[in-house]
């Protein structure tokens, strides 16, 4: 996060160093305690939503790797998740493959597709990867539709509950922990990756690809690497989704899903791991929040029966607002809000500029 030097926040300093400040440790323990205790606090309904949040975190972090750190865009996220989910469906229904095996194979498939799709567009700037991934999305979806209609009579595939040692993935609480663990693992993995040589190379390519080349970083190769990793992680998220829903059907993976993940990364804050996590939670919690709001505030009947459109419309407006007003996303919003009192005090002084 190249902004760290410019942002004089304690959290930034905390994530830089190996050791956390005391108050951060307390926060962390409190949050962890809540996360662990959730299955006994929350209702089944909200637990299900939290499970969806965990999957969203994985998907958002995956997309963030690509967009935030290599500056490339993928419009095929939904298709890649479908790939993971349908791989899971195929492997469990045809080969009865165990949980871990399915996840590995699904991720590998995602990586391969990422390689195939990424290679051609890599030498080209800007839109060509976007365009290729859009094609990948539609091709995967169309293929999945074909597969679903020929094999499952169009209804979709059931994913039987898989055994994880003494537990079953079909158990909501078990799955909650599994997903949270995966989300945490991917977070740690991503954070470490970006500190490593590979990650720094990516950031160099994003910011100044000519200079990076001069320093020995092979721009095209790093873009492909990033895209392969993104695709693999996204397919993993898709496979986890399949186990979570216990059902796979192609309508769940429309282009809207791609847009949702793009929104998570943008609204959360690009090139920011906390941003992606925040964005994932925010976007996942938005529809139930709107529904709850509509139930509580008196609204015309049309709003509750046409709730889907209200949710979609608000989502689009929110996306637009963030694109224009706060391109740094929610993580950019927080320091801005915190800076308001001091800005009011020191009139005329502008906040620290953000590295574009």
């Amino acid at each position, binding site marked *: 996060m190249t902004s760290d030097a410019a942002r004089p926040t304690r959290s930034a300093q905390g994530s830089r160093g190996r050791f956390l400040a005391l108050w951060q440790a307390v926060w962390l323990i409190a949050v962890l305690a809540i996360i662990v205790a959730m299955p006994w606090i929350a209702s089944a309904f909200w637990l299900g939503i939290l499970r969806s949040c965990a999957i969203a975190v994985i998907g958002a972090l995956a997309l963030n790797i690509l967009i935030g750190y290599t500056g490339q865009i993928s419009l095929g996220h939904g298709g890649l998740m479908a790939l993971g989910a349908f791989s899971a469906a195929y492997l469990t229904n045809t080969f009865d493959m165990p949980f871990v095996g399915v996840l590995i194979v699904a991720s590998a498939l995602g990586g391969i597709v990422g390689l195939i799709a990424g290679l*051609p567009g890599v030498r080209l700037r800007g839109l060509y990867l976007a365009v290729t991934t859009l094609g990948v999305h539609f091709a995967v979806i169309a293929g999945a539709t074909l597969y679903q209609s020929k094999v499952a009579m169009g209804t979709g595939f059931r994913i039987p509950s898989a055994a994880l040692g003494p537990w079953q993935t079909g158990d909501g609480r078990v799955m909650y922990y599994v997903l949270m663990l995966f989300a945490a693992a991917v977070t740690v993995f991503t954070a470490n990756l970006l500190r490593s040589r590979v990650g720094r190379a990516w950031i160099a390519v994003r910011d100044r690809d000519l200079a990076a080349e001069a320093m020995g970083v092979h721009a*095209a190769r790093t873009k492909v690497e990033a895209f392969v990793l993104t695709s693999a992680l996204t397919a993993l998220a898709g496979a986890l989704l399949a186990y979570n829903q216990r059902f796979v059907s192609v309508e769940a993976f429309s282009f809207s899903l791609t847009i949702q993940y793009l929104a998570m990364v943008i609204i959360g804050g690009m090139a920011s791991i906390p941003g992606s996590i925040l964005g994932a939670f925010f976007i996942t919690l938005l529809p139930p929040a709107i529904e709850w709001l509509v139930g509580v505030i008196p609204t015309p009947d049309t709003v509750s029966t046409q709730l889907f*459109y209200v949710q979609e419309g608000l989502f689009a407006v929110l996306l*637009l607002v963030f694109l*224009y007003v706060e391109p740094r996303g929610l993580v950019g919003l927080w320091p801005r809000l915190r800076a308001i009192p001091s800005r009011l005090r020191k009139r005329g002084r502008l906040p620290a500029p953000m590295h574009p």
Partner: protein
Amino acid sequence: MQTVANVVLLGSLYLLLATGFVLIYRGSRVMNLAYGDTMALGAYVILLVAMASHVNWTLAVLLALVIGVLIGAAMYWLFVRPVQDHPVYVPILVTIALGILIRTCISLVFTSQNRYLDEVLQIPKYSVSLAHLQINFIDAALVGTALAYLLVVALGLRRTSFGIRMEAVAENADLAALRGISPAGVLAPVWGIAMIGAVLAGFFIGVRTTVSPDIWLIGLKGLTPALVGGLSSFRGLVPGCLLVAATEVLTIQYIDPVLGEVAPFLVMLAVLWVRPWGLAGKPEQIARV
């Protein structure tokens, strides 16, 4: 023989959509993913005009075209212009979000009910027999309009001073501005003209099948031929549209209609793999690294 006609008809529909799309991309380097939604909007605007005023159908279409041009220009001016120098994905996401908004409003106002444009507009039903083929008035109009639109746009860019200005802005906006050409002043009309293709496509789809809020998906399929032909090339449009249309029609007629859905995307991926800048595009987008 009918197969050829089918290819030409579908190709013409794609041509209307792809021309507008390429125009926007060539002019402002923005992939307008709201194009399908603006096509749906065009169809509904025609419907609204016809239902509200009972005018002659040609007048209704013309009125809708004018409104479409204004909407296109407004879309650029209000929404795209502020983010044009932002990273490349920002304008795309803006158009995506706008598309969602348009779709949502259409669904809320008009509901999911199917509407029939030819019934509302009272389109005359002439047809002539020509070499074993029944040629329908509307079908002939589709082919003619698509070609005319392409010609007007492509030639307009080359011959008129406005076209030259647009090319200048497209090539180097800053330099153009230095020479006194306002990028926004050029691009707003460009987006407006591109919208003509969308409205016309919406008209033909509405008349030949139905108008419903889901036709935006068809509009998005117009993206494929544009990509195959070369996103920034007008010359590649006709071959691109014909190739994609032929693949789709032949797959539906001789293999399976469901596979016909996938075929265009597979063609697109194949072309992008081999020639990422499309059949007739210039390899201008190759990064120098």
